[in-house]
């Protein structure tokens, strides 16, 4: 079951640093690999951070875990900086709940 740990999925440059601070890191080479890893990790980890660039390409698998309390799959920016995928997620949530994006509108 849940092992109350943090997993980080991403490319090599972005995740090595997380290893040093005590998270379990999983290096993926391609998006297919990422999807498989995510599915496997979702069974045991409470929090899974995934770099935005990869998250964007496995979004349909991330969507599967959206309505469950655990695991929390959260996109984070990689070493290249943010591409706005995480922020878009917030806008999408607002749109879904309220009907229009009122946070970025004003």
């Amino acid at each position, binding site marked *: 079951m849940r092992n109350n740990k943090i997993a980080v999925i991403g490319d090599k440059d972005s995740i090595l640093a997380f*290893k040093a601070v*005590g998270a379990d890191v999983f290096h993926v080479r391609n998006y297919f690999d990422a999807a498989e890893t995510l599915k496997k990790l979702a069974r045991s980890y409470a929090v899974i951070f995934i770099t935005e660039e990869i998250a964007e390409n496995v979004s349909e698998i991330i969507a599967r875990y959206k309505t469950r309390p655990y695991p929390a799959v959260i996109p984070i920016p*990689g*070493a290249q900086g943010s591409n706005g995928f995480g922020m878009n997620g917030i806008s999408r949530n607002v749109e879904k709940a309220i009907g229009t994006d009122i946070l970025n509108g004003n």
Partner: protein
Amino acid sequence: MARLNVNPTRMELRRLKTRLKTAVRGHKLLKDKADETIRQFMVLIKENKRLREETEGEVSAALRSFLLAGAVTTAPVMEEAVAMPGYSVELETSEKNVMSVMVPQISVKEGDKKELYPYSFAGVSAELDGSIANLSEVLVKLVHLAEVEKACNMLADEIEKNRRRVNALEYVMIPQLEETIKYITMKLDENERSNTIRLMKVKSMIENRT
């Protein structure tokens, strides 16, 4: 709006009236729930946005300085330095009930942080220390972000579901019931009238015979 396919009887009428009462009550309750869920959602999503703006910059900065620190040494040295972390982060997880949605509650367990730097200082550059210290601070924030963002995801989903329920009640269920009740009442009244007329007719026929 189409009415329901039921027999116009008194029993049916009584049954429908109770159903209407339940539907109206349920509709009111669900509407109240929607209001409150949206209020909670707004509080959370604002925090979510603030946290994300904060952490995104910090994570990128920490990762970049890590890369820079790696650039001055060779890749194997770097990997060796962080290959065996001094400790692993433990989380404390539970669930919290927000408007009957079970959202996660996650916090970093305050363990004994024996050794933040799992390497010998001789082998790597000083920048690495800084970036790792930064990142371990950001990690706490990231975990908080994870908690809030997950709650937002789940609440958004719940709000959407709830809205569909409210709309179904308001625009389908309740009008249908009202229309059917009206139809049955009219039908029963009509039966009553035709019954009275029939009696009057019979009475006059009997009177005429004698």
